[in-house]
């Protein structure tokens, strides 16, 4: 739509310009061709002045400006390229580090798994050893108890023998009445009970 409007405006403007030019040329011809379109002099002057201007501006104005522009653009391009290069390097480095991190993580996980496994094995071993030790301790305890029991029985037998010997001695030394006999039996039983209690 806008393009069509622009085109229409351009056409109208062109038509108006053409109309004015046509009227002007017509008027010029009607007045006997008085209009002066210039001659060779203006053309030569225009070419000479333009040539001179091109030389002067080209040497002292456009040349330095264009060089300055090119230098600045080159410097910007260099900076962009250098930045891109650094970015690429940083990305490569980041990738390398990522790979290293992943490898380290894998290694750590491996080490952890092995440690857990080792710890489990060690634990098993410790438990087995402890069990073994406990069994041996129990066996030793039982043996000691048996030994102590045997010793106690032996001691009790010895004590009983000694006591029987003493009682027999006492009996032999004293005349036995029923009352004495009963007292002797009671005191002997008490003495045996006390000795057993002391030895246990």
């Amino acid at each position, binding site marked *: 739509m806008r393009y069509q409007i622009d085109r229409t405006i351009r056409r109208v403007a062109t038509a*108006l*310009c*053409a109309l*004015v*030019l046509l*009227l*002007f040329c017509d*008027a*010029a011809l*009607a*007045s006997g061709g*008085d*209009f*002066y*379109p*210039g*001659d*060779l*002099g*203006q*053309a*030569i*002057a*225009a*070419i000479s*002045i*333009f040539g*001179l*201007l*091109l030389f*002067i*501006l*080209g040497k*002292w*104005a*456009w*040349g*330095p*400006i*264009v060089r*300055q*522009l*090119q230098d*600045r653009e080159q410097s910007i391009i260099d900076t962009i390229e250098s930045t891109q290069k650094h970015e690429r390097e940083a990305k490569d480095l980041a990738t390398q580090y990522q790979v290293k991190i992943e490898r380290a993580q894998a290694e750590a996980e491996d080490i952890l798994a092995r440690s857990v496994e080792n710890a489990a094995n060690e634990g098993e071993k410790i438990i087995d050893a402890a069990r073994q030790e406990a069994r041996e301790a129990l066996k030793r305890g039982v043996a000691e108890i048996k030994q102590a029991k045997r010793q106690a029985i032996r001691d009790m037998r010895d004590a009983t023998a000694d006591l029987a010997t003493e009682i027999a001695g006492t009996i032999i030394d004293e005349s036995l009445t029923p009352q004495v006999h009963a007292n002797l039996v009671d005191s002997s039983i008490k003495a045996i009970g006390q000795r057993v209690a002391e030895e246990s």
Partner: protein
Amino acid sequence: MLGAAEFDLMEYLSAHLADHPWDGCTVHIGSMPVTWMSSAIAGMIIVALGLIAIVIPVSRRRKDTPTGVYNVLEILTVFVRDSIARPALGDDKKVYKFLPLLLTLFVFVLGMSLIGLAPLGPLSAWLKWHIPFLKGRPIGATPTAVLTVCAALAMITCFSILFSGLHHAAHAHHKKKKTPMLLCWALSPVLWAVSLCPPIPGFMGVVMLGPLVFLELIGVVAKCFALMIRLFANMIAGHAMLAVLMMFVLKGVQAMVDKGLNDVFYITPAVVVGSAAIGILEMAVALLQAFLFTVLTAVFLGLYAEPAH
């Protein structure tokens, strides 16, 4: 003029639009008049001096971070390079080769079109008292409204095309065939003309070569001729319109003096406003024409100076 019974429109328009050769500044070579100084030539010299006086000092202010007026110059350079030269010429080597030509053409055509809008008539009258040499000679015509100046500008484009085309054809042939450079230069018109034509294989190619070369050469000349007419017509049309509008004021005053018609006095403000509006339009047209002239020159250079086929 005001007291005259008849107002001569053509005389008025001619006085405002045409170039005015200075007295005694025209020589004749055979029957051909050659003017070496006129109001339009003076205008061109003023434009050239003005450009030299402005552009060169400003271009020396360049630094890494552009500031001030230098910015304008750099924006202009970048605009001509990126919006005109690059789309038309493509290759950066060609762009930088023709960039000074295009930039100078742009500012020169713009300056010549704008100087016609500057009120240099009163200035020339004032200078009469300070520079006796001028003797009140006019210095304020629009050079681009002079047909031969437009023709000269079109010839500059044509010569640029021709010279670049011959130069490229000679160097390309020398590089390709290792022919001596002098011979390449001698053959360059034929090589360039042939390079303009699309390649047609076989017998038809030989038959069509002549007519195609002729047509392409006619095309170059026609395009340069169109360039001349476009600039001239646009400039003369705008100026004619301004002159006609300003003429209304004079006609109104004449009617007041001769016939006592006081009402026509009221036409003056409308005419002044209209003239100001047309003046602004003229500035836009000047800018547009400078742009168009430069764009078309770049396009023609791209098409013909170093043709792809």
